[in-house]
C-alpha cells in the first residue's frame, strides 16, 4: 500500500543565494497528509529580567485560575489563558551562603545552571545551563543549535561584582562548566547569524551587498521563485508574509545603523542598536520570532539586560539607572519606578507572545508549540533575595501544559525543576539540570 502523502517540500528547505541562506517557515506543503498535528517542533526560550522585580506588584496571594493579574503583569491580560504563573521557586546557589556580596553575578550565573558559582575573575567554574543541555541534545536538528540574545553590551573580562568575573553577570548560557556563550547584542550580527551562509557572512559579501544597497532577499530571488512555483496559494501567501517580515527586520537593522540618536544626553548608543529600548527589544525578538518560525533554532535565551544593569529608561520617563533604584529601601517613589520598568518589560514581552500566538503552524500556532520562561534570578532586588523567584511560563509546550493558572510550590523548590521539566518536554533525557531535584508537578492537568 502506498502511504498517503501530499508532501512536496522538505522541512529543512532553504532559499540560497550569494552570501545568504533563508530558511523557510512551516508550510502546509511540508506536512504529509494526516500528520499535521504531530509534526511541529517544540521551541524553548528564556527571557531574563535583571535586578529583580517590585514584588509588591507581582505577587498573587492565592493559587488557582489566573483571573485578576497583578499590576506588573497587566500587559499579559489578553494572554492570561496562555501563561502559567509559578511561585516560590528558588535558586539556592545564587545566595550569599559563605561568600557574601556578589549577588548579581551569582544570580544570573546560578539561575539556569543551578550550580555553585566559583568566585574568581579569571578561573571560571560553573555548570551547563538548561538551554545548552537541550541544545547539546537536539541542536543538531536545526541550523543553529541555539541563539543567545542580549539587549545590552557584553563584557567578558574583569571584575564586575565583588570578585566575580564579568562573565557571570553577562552570560546566561553556558555550554560547559567553563565556557559561556556570549549573547549577541548587535542587530546586524544577529541578522547575519540567521541569514548569512556561514556563522557570519564574509566581510566581502556583506560589503558588496551593502554597497549595492541590496536586500538579502534579492540574493535568494531565484530560489524563492522556484519554491513559490511548487506550493499552493495558501503557502504562497504565507511565504510572502514571511519574506516581508524578514525584509522589515532587515530594514529596521539598516535604520538603526544609520540612526545617530543618543540614548540619553552624554551616552552614545552602541553601533547599530536602536536608541529606543522598545524598538531594540522588538527588533531582536522579531528576529527570534523568525528564527522560531523558520525552525532555524529551537532553543534561545534573551537577556533583557545583564545582571546589575544600569540602563536608564527615558522612553517611559525614567532617566535613572536601573540597578541603583532597585536598592529602594522601601522608598515608594523608587518602587514605583521599578514597577514601571518591570511593566514595560512585560509589555514588550507580551507583544512577542502575541506574535507567536497569531502565527498559525499546522493546526495549531507557534505559541502552542513553545515553552517561553520569563523570570529573574532575584525576587527583591534591594535585599537580593534568591527565593520566591518571579516566574512565568508561556505556551503550552505542544498541548502539554495547562496554562491560565497560578501554582504556588513549596518553598526551596529549585527553579531548575522547571527547566528539567521543559527539557524533558523537548524530549531530552537529562538526569538533572544543575541542582534540580525532579520535575515540577501540576503543570499539566491532563
Amino acid at each position, binding site marked *: 500500500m502506498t502511504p498517503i502523502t501530499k508532501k512536496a517540500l522538505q522541512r529543512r528547505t532553504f532559499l540560497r543565494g550569494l552570501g545568504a541562506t533563508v530558511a523557510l517557515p512551516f508550510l502546509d506543503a511540508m506536512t504529509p497528509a494526516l500528520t499535521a498535528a504531530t509534526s511541529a517542533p517544540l521551541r524553548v526560550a528564556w527571557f531574563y529580567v535583571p535586578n529583580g522585580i517590585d514584588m509588591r506588584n507581582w505577587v498573587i496571594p492565592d493559587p488557582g485560575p489566573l483571573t485578576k493579574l497583578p499590576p506588573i503583569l497587566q500587559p499579559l491580560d489578553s494572554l492570561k489563558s496562555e501563561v502559567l504563573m509559578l511561585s516560590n521557586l528558588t535558586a539556592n546557589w545564587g545566595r550569599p*551562603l559563605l561568600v557574601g556580596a556578589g549577588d548579581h553575578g551569582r544570580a544570573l550565573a546560578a539561575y539556569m545552571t543551578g550550580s555553585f558559582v566559583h568566585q574568581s575573575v579569571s578561573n571560571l567554574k560553573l555548570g551547563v545551563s538548561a538551554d545548552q543541555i537541550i541544545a547539546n541534545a537536539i541542536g543538531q536538528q536545526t541550523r543553529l543549535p541555539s541563539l543567545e540574545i542580549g539587549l545590552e*553590551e557584553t563584557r567578558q573580562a*574583569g571584575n564586575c561584582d565583588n570578585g566575580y568575573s564579568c562573565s557571570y553577570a553577562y552570560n546566561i548560557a553556558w555550554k560547559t562548566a567553563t565556557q559561556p556563550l556570549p549573547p549577541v547584542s548587535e542587530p546586524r550580527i544577529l541578522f547575519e547569524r540567521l541569514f548569512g551562509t556561514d556563522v557570519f557572512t564574509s566581510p566581502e559579501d556583506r560589503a558588496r551587498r551593502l554597497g549595492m544597497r541590496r536586500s538579502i532577499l534579492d540574493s535568494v530571488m531565484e530560489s524563492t521563485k522556484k519554491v513559490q512555483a511548487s506550493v499552493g496559494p495558501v503557502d504562497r501567501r504565507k511565504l510572502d508574509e514571511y519574506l516581508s517580515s524578514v525584509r522589515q527586520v532587515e530594514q529596521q537593522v539598516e535604520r538603526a545603523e544609520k540612526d545617530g540618536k543618543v540614548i540619553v544626553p552624554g551616552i552614545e548608543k552602541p553601533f547599530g542598536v536602536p536608541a529606543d529600548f522598545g524598538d531594540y527589544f522588538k527588533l531582536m525578538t522579531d528576529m527570534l520570532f523568525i528564527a522560531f518560525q523558520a525552525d532555524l533554532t529551537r532553543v534561545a535565551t534573551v537577556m533583557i539586560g545583564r545582571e546589575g544593569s*544600569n540602563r536608564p529608561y527615558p522612553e517611559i520617563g525614567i532617566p535613572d539607572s536601573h540597578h541603583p533604584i532597585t536598592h529602594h529601601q522601601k522608598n515608594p517613589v523608587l518602587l514605583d519606578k521599578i514597577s514601571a520598568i518591570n511593566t514595560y518589560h512585560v509589555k514588550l514581552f507580551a507583544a512577542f507572545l502575541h506574535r507567536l500566538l497569531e502565527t498559525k503552524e499546522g493546526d495549531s500556532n507557534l505559541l502552542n508549540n513553545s515553552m517561553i520562561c520569563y523570570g529573574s534570578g532575584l525576587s527583591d532586588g534591594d535585599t537580593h*533575595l534568591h527565593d520566591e523567584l518571579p516566574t512565568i511560563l508561556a505556551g503550552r509546550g505542544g498541548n502539554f501544559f495547562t496554562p491560565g493558572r497560578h501554582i504556588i510550590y513549596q518553598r*526551596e523548590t529549585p527553579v531548575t525543576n522547571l527547566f528539567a521539566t521543559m527539557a524533558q518536554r523537548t524530549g531530552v533525557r537529562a538526569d538533572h539540570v544543575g541542582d534540580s*531535584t525532579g520535575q515540577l508537578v501540576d503543570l499539566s492537568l491532563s
Partner: protein
Amino acid sequence: MQARQTPIGGIVYNTTMSRPDAALALALLYGIEGKREARVASIAVTENSLGAATFVDAVYRFYQLGPLANANRVLPIGLAADKPLPPDSPMVKAAIGRVDEKGEPVYRTGIRRVSDSAEVTALMRNSLAYFYDGFVTVVLSAPATYLARTLDYAGTRELIQSKVKLLIVSECKQDVPAMRRVLAEWPTPIAFCGREVGDALPYPASSIEQDFAWAAAHPVVDFYRAYKPMPYDAPAQDLAAVMYAARPDSGLFQLSGTGSLEVLDDGEMRFSANASGKHKRLVADPANKDKVMAAIRAIVTAKPVPPPPRRRFTPEEFEKLQKEREEEQKKRDLQDKKLAVPPPAKS
C-alpha cells in the same frame, strides 16, 4: 590584629515532631543558637501534619526577637507533603490553637498552608551550603525516607561528604529500605542515639511546671502538657542527640567503640558492637546524669536572646566609607563610558 573567629557549626534536624522531647529539642536548638554555639541549619518535619510545621515555625518566631531574617539567612521550616497529611495531633492543636482573650492566636506563625513550608529534601540539601566544610551535624529523628532521597540528587553526596561531619540517628520506627540505604551509602560517620539514652535521662515535669514562668505562654510547654496528663517526665532522647550535635567535646556524652547499626525487618533498629563496624553509639555515663540534665535544662528553659546589635559606624568611618564608594563608582562610570564608545567604523 583581631583574631579570626572560628566558624560556627550548623544542625539539620529531621523530626516527626510527635514526642515531647522533639518539642523540647526545638527549645534546645534555639537556645544553643542564642548562645552563638551553633546555628539551626534547617528543620524538616516529616510524617506529620501541616499544623506540626506551623508549630515549629511558631517556636522559631517565639525565640526570634526583632525582625525576622529572610531566606538568605534563615531557611523556612520544611514539611514532607508528597502524600496525604495526617490530622493535627492534640499537642500541636494545644499550641497553635491557643488564643488570647480576644480570640487571637497567642503565637505568631507564617505557615498557614503547605506552600508556606519548604520542600524537605531540597531544604536539607540547600541548608548544607550555608556552612563551612565539616561543620554540619545532621540529627535524624524520623524515618529516613527523605534523607535517603537526597542521595539521589546530583552533587549532593559530595556536598554531604564535604559539609557534614556526623549523622546522628535518634532511634524511631524506621522506613526499612530508606534507612538501609542511608546506612549503606551515607558518606560520613554515623552515630546512634538509642531509646535507652533518653530513658536514662528523664526530663523532669517540675521543669515544665517551674522553669518557664518567665513566659506567659510558651508553645513548647503547651505541646508538652498536651501529650499526656501532667506531671510526667519525658525521655530526653532527641535532647541528647541535639546536645551532642552542638557540644560534641563537652564530655556530657561519649561515643562508644565501633559497631554495626542495622534495621530489622519490622523497622526497629539494633546496634551490635564489633571491631570492624562503621558506626558508634551515643553513651551517657549514669554518674553524669544530673550534670547532663542540668546543662540541657539550663539551655531549654533560657529566655530568648535578642540578636547582637548591628555595629554602627562612627561619623569618621562613615565618611571614609562614603568616599571609597564614590571613588569606586567613578571608576565604574569611567569603565562604562569607555565601553559605550562605538567601535571604529570598519572600512
